[in-house]
């Protein structure tokens, strides 16, 4: 297909210093380089106002396509309107926004759900069919709420009497997760599964468990994201860390650039372009990633082989 290539793509990321987005950007850069496109990134650093400013600056600089990961999905509605008024093609990453053309995203609910199913199966085999869950969650974002909900729904398909003992706000960061989990475990330690909405959260929960002086026998820890090296290290060294719901950030970036090219050419695109996820159990991670020193490389063949769902089971719209 002799498509026209955009010369320059501008990406306003919500939080560039986070490992997840580091890897999204990595995937974007790889794909842009393959296609001969210049990619520029501006970081909103979790500041909604700065995000709008970043997009404005890109439009002033004259990029051909904008990709945006919203800090908050409601907060970019006027921005989309202004982009449309200036005929600026725009692709969203992560979350849907009123008035958008297309969005590239994983299915958060499905991700949690499949991890939940895997956790249920594991509990049946190794934990005597008991599932008492501590969710180290993040109510701040609809995406992370969907993951937690999916996880509980998934686990219940295997163990209907599974209970949610603690539903916590770990802030998505490790020290807060640790602190909150410690308090929760002190209140009630009758828990055998720790679920974290990202790797920081699951590890924070696990560290709280260890700090309380408990053995990891009979414990299962399930993380989400597979953002960097942390989960790999945990899966290699921590006996309880058995399941990781991998979300392949590099693949998300890769797909977003492809979508940007399509939108630039005015091609028809679905509203939601799904990027694949899958639970990795035990040593599965080695199929998708290899580690050398402190860098990990993605195995594109394996990842491209994971089939994305056509449609998410549940989305943010279902939460309201």
């Amino acid at each position: 297909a002799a498509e026209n290539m955009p010369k320059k793509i501008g990406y306003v990321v919500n939080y560039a210093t986070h490992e997840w987005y580091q890897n999204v950007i990595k995937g974007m850069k790889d794909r842009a380089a393959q296609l001969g496109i210049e990619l520029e990134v501006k970081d909103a650093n979790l500041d909604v106002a700065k995000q709008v400013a970043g997009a404005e600056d890109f439009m002033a600089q004259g990029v051909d396509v904008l990709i945006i990961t919203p800090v908050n999905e409601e907060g970019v509605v006027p921005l989309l309107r202004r982009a449309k008024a200036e005929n600026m093609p725009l692709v969203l990453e992560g979350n849907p926004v009123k008035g958008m053309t297309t969005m590239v995203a994983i299915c958060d609910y499905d991700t949690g759900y499949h991890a939940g199913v895997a956790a249920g199966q594991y509990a049946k085999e190794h934990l005597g069919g008991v599932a008492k869950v501590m969710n180290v969650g993040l109510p701040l974002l609809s995406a992370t709420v969907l993951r937690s909900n999916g996880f509980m729904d998934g686990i219940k398909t295997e163990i209907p009497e599974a209970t949610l003992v603690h539903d916590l706000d770990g802030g998505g960061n490790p020290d807060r997760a640790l602190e909150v989990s410690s308090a929760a475990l002190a209140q009630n330690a009758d828990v055998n599964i720790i679920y974290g909405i990202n790797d920081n959260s699951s590890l924070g929960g696990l560290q709280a468990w260890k700090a309380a002086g408990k053995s990891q026998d009979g414990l299962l820890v399930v993380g989400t994201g597979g953002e960097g090296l942390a989960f790999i290290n945990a899966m290699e060294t921590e006996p309880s860390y058995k399941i990781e719901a991998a979300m392949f950030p590099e693949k998300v970036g890769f797909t977003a650039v492809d979508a940007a090219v399509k939108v630039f050419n005015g091609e028809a695109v679905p509203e939601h372009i799904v990027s694949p996820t899958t639970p990795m159990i035990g040593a599965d991670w080695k199929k998708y990633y290899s580690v050398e020193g402190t860098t990990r490389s993605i195995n594109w063949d394996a990842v491209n082989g994971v089939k994305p769902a056509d449609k998410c089971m549940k989305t943010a719209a279902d939460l309201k």
Partner: protein
Amino acid sequence: MPQSVSSLAAAPAGPSLLRRLARRNEIALLLSLLAVIAFFALASDTFLTTRNLTNVLGQAALPLVAGIGVAIVFISGEVDVSIGSLVAAIAIPLITIMNATESFALGVAGALALGLAVGVVNGYLAAYLGINSLIVTLGTLFILRGGVYLYTGQRAIPDDVMLESFFQLGNGRLFGVVPHPAVIAVILLIAFAYFLRHRPFGRQLYAVGGNPEVARLAGYNVRRVKFVAFVISALLATIAGILLASRLGSAVHVAGLGFEFQVVAAVVLGGVSLSGGVGSLAGMALGVLILQFVSNGLGMLNIATEWQLVITGGIIIAAVAFDELKRRRA
């Protein structure tokens, strides 16, 4: 004793006009701002375009508007760090009321009512009960943010009615060129600069911050002056919050996180003293613009966030240290 002795005593001569001007902090700031602009104009070919410059003005409008209030509180000898949460909180009545009534004016009235209430509470606790204002406003910063999260259940509240007037307020441009927020910021700046310089109450703010005991002896109601400063600050933060809500088209619970740091840094950079009684709105505005242009320019040069943080931090230290050195020389 002859009267001439006193004129023979080595009375300090007033410094010449030129010297006085050179000592003015604003001149140094203006030169720094021009240097920043010149640097980025040379380094990037998209920086010095009308579009980009007006963009930056529009982006600077929020810290400018809120900065007026923070500067006024600083001048009165107190501090206000609650604005970061306030800009997020006032969007809630604004959007909720607009959604319910489809009236922009009613929404703004609701926002102003909340802003006023916060200003009154801050002012009452700090000025009348005498609780340290950093503690008070740190407290309201936490309380308001927590309140926003509790009220919204940590979801943004979307604007369902999409009034055109509301959209235009933050997103439109006067004559298609100057963003409306910039126009509003300039009008407020001029009005408050006049107020501080030419109204007795403006001078009372300086006097109260410069030396509260003296101000009291001169017959001022020190508490009331400080109280009013907090109310002004909250109302200006409310206006900034309304502009932000328009740019975001919703009440976003995470809006304004860290905004108070950003504004305080700019205000201090602009020469408004933390110990009260010193500073001007012109200086404050230059402080805001310098930081905004640096941030924009580094973005234009495609410099990563981590470097932007390091460079901005370095600039703040260098600028304040330079100012201090200059003052010691003088």
